[in-house]
């Protein structure tokens, strides 16, 4: 075995004599204890204040709810301890000692550290993994409810407005889940180790990013209790200007979520730029790192546009501005531009790390160097750059600017070139490789299969003439599920199975993993091939009732969806039961060469006792001249 480098002994810490923190401090419990009362107080104080302006009852309720959500968010973050250090700094308190930092990182924290404001990047990674899985479960349940409703024509299960809310909640939950699914768990857990760092550049911001996301979840889940929102996840104005109070939950969720992504993105980019180990040049960076940086940088640019769209919507709804109201000089196109300037690049915020996972894992399971490393990096950076000038293809049929449709069609199709580079690197790596058909490898192949279908069908939606025909149909729904789920989520699942031994210390059950893979693939392709068919026949998306001629396609699609649901339960079962009863994982079960596999399992708190010196690329499999590697001459542990 030749690793990218080797590292010294695992870090160990002097068991400190000081008493550990009270576990309830800086925890989810203290967060709720502050957040909930503050939300209630904020609601009634605002209600009283707005009442004095003789506003109508609906306005009073709307304004009060928005302030209550803000109260919850700020209160929870204060309670969880997110602002402790800034407050101490403002009060000129002493700098925290190294021991303080270790405690904050979860040293001696036990399992409770996962429920606290903990700065260790590995804890944050696992928090994100669990959060992502929970969000997938919630969004998945919504998907099951949707497919239950449309398994037959006739809208028999729910009132239409309930159905609309379920559609919107499924959409946004899944978007959030897919945005965080790779950069949340794997970038946080793996990338600092991969580049030879002890932690992220800003550990407190790292924890803050997770708890900001956590803050948003109850807000979003409260939407159905306030009338839901009938807008779908796009929340187009002026419909979103008018819909029920649940819309405020949506907007506030986005405010917290975008803040979370911004904080996380700054952290990832800074970490990779400044904390690489000696010898870890940009051309030796594992490709997951490139994907994480490109995705984070892209998110940093485009996600604030989403925040702006919701902030203006909130102002329209609360204090009566008219950003999106035509009769006050506003424009619904403003909303659409703000939304889609985020909305399309967001696809690449999701997919770039997925590309990176595929490229990261393929050399491991083909025992070959990555084919065309620089080409692949060029593809990732190219996709990231081009993705910011394609958004208006979502607006071909709005009448916004027919003249602009041609250029946007061109830019949209241009993006297939850098995407092709990524595929070239993937297929080139597979070519004549000695494929090791593990569960992660199966998922890598499924990514290539599904994403090609998603990409090819996307060309029809990028072309103006065909998009005019297909826009708003279930063809579009099937297309983006093939890219985000068939591509992105399959890469995520590859990553889950690949890094599970390192993250959990246990091996998963292989037989169950293979059953889970095949049920997922069959269920997925049945669901969305049938959806392509009914979409081409003209069935509109987001509609709970449909004509009888679409019945067979919808029935097949629903059956496929239920198979996906069963498959996801198998995944949950495998991960949870294996954590309890699975075989103990060796440090490097895949014989991989990147640094995360060279440290012990479980990974020590500070990752390395001595910062490693990197002397080789990460994918030097089967090369005749193995580069030398140097052990343990780096920076000693603090």
């Amino acid at each position, binding site marked *: 075995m030749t690793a990218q480098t080797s590292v010294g002994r695992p870090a160990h810490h002097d068991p400190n004599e000081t008493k550990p923190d009270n576990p309830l401090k800086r925890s989810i419990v203290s967060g709720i204890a502050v957040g909930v009362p503050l939300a209630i107080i904020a609601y009634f104080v605002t209600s009283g204040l707005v009442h004095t302006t003789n506003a109508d009852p609906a306005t009073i309720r709307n304004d009060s709810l928005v302030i209550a959500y803000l109260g919850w968010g700020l209160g929870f973050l204060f309670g969880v301890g997110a602002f402790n250090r800034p407050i101490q700094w403002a009060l000129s308190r002493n700098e925290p000692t190294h021991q303080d930092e270790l405690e904050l990182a979860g040293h001696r924290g036990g399992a409770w550290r996962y429920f606290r404001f903990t700065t260790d990047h590995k804890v944050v990674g696992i928090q994100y993994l669990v959060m992502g899985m929970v969000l997938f479960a919630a969004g998945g349940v919504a998907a099951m409810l949707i497919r*239950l409703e449309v398994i037959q024509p006739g809208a028999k*299960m729910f009132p239409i407005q309930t159905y609309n809310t379920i559609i919107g909640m499924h959409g946004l939950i899944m978007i959030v889940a897919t945005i965080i699914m790779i950069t949340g768990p794997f970038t946080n857990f793996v990338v600092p180790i991969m580049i030879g760092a002890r932690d992220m550049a800003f550990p407190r911001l790292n924890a803050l990013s997770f708890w900001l996301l956590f803050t948003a979840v109850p807000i979003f889940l409260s939407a159905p209790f306030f*009338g839901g929102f009938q807008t779908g996840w796009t929340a187009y104005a002026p419909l979103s200007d008018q819909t029920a109070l649940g819309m405020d939950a949506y907007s506030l969720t986005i405010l917290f979520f975008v803040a979370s992504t911004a904080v996380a993105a700054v952290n990832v980019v800074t970490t990779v730029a400044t904390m690489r180990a000696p010898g870890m040049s940009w051309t030796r960076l594992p490709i997951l790192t490139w994907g994480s940086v490109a995705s984070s940088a892209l998110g940093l640019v485009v996600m604030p546009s989403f925040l702006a769209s919701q902030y203006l919507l909130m102002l329209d709804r609360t204090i009566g501005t008219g950003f999106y109201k035509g009769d006050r000089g506003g424009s619904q196109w403003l909303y659409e531009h703000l939304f889609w300037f985020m909305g399309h690049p967001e696809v690449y915020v999701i997919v770039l790390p997925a590309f990176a996972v595929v490229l990261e894992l393929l050399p491991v399971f083909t025992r070959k160097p990555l084919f065309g490393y620089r080409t692949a990096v060029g593809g990732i950076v190219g996709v990231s750059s081009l993705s910011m000038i394609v958004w208006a293809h979502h607006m071909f049929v709005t009448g916004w600017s027919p003249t602009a449709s041609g250029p946007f069609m061109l830019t949209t199709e241009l993006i297939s070139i850098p995407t092709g580079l990524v595929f070239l690197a993937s297929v080139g790596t597979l070519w004549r490789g000695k494929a090791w058909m593990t*569960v992660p490898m199966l998922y890598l192949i499924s990514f290539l299969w599904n994403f090609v279908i998603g990409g090819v069908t996307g060309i029809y939606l990028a072309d103006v003439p065909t998009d005019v025909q297909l826009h708003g149909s279930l063809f579009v729904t099937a297309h983006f599920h093939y890219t985000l789920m068939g591509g992105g989520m399959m890469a995520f699942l590859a990553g889950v199975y690949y890094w599970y031994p390192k993250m959990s210390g246990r091996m998963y059950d292989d037989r169950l993993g293979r059953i889970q893979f095949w049920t997922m693939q069959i269920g997925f392709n049945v669901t969305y091939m049938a959806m392509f068919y009914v979409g081409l026949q003209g069935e509109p998306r987001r509609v709970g009732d*449909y004509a009888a001629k679409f019945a067979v396609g919808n029935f097949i699609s629903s059956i496929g969806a239920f198979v996906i*649901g069963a498959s996801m339960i198998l995944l949950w079962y495998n991960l949870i039961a294996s954590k309890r009863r699975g075989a103990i994982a060796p440090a490097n079960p*895949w014989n991989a060469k990147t640094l995360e596999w060279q440290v012990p399992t479980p990974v020590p708190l500070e990752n390395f006792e001595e910062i490693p010196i990197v002397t080789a690329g990460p994918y030097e499999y089967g090369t005749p001249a193995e580069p030398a590697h140097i052990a343990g001459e780096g920076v000693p542990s603090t």
Partner: protein
Amino acid sequence: MNKSSPGGGPQAALGKLSMAGAVVAVAVGAALVLGLALLLKALGAHPFTLKASTSSSTGGQTVAHLTISAYPDSMAGEHGKSGGAHPDWVSYGPTTNLWVPAHALVKMTIKNYDSATALNSPFFGNVQGTVGGVAYYNGKPLKRINPNDVAHTFTIHMFPTAGQPPLDVSVPLLGVADNAPNAPGSQYPKPTVVTFEFHTGASGRYIWQCFDPCGGTSYYAGFGGPMQNLGYMAGTVTVGGGAVA
């Protein structure tokens, strides 16, 4: 292609979990989703469906009678006296979900308490799909009314799902005067009353909606807000079968 480690290192192997446990997990998951669906169905059910009273005519045909109202706000219908989330939205009441029998003559009465908003399309000033093509406005038969005098329309407009017979009915409601005082003991003025009749065919489910731009000036061309939400200026008509929420 192989399943063993080509590096000669440890296998990715592999705890053996119980398949029975996996099956139970899937069954429990499916049961939870189904339970949630049924709970949502129960919780999300529309407040109620107004069922037409029926009688038989001398010819043996079923005759159904249905009376609904249109209000300038939401405080007299299904949203309760507080008006719910949008007390200032115009609404129909007592509910917007209606049930009428199949193969019947439906005699419908609509009381309108709201003032007029001029139609965008004069077409909806015409009475369509009723027996004789007329409706009776305060007892006076008319085939159309002035588009400027229309307060709302009752228009069954959705293309029927394939297999359902068409049901195309549209009746404009005459607005009350802008400055009409409230009737004694009422929060609204004396209503205008329109009556009309139409025939139903086989069972089916339809959407009806107002086509007058009554959604308020702050909403898109008057077609937002209550115009876009069931329970205000839109609802369902179920013909025959069981009443559907």
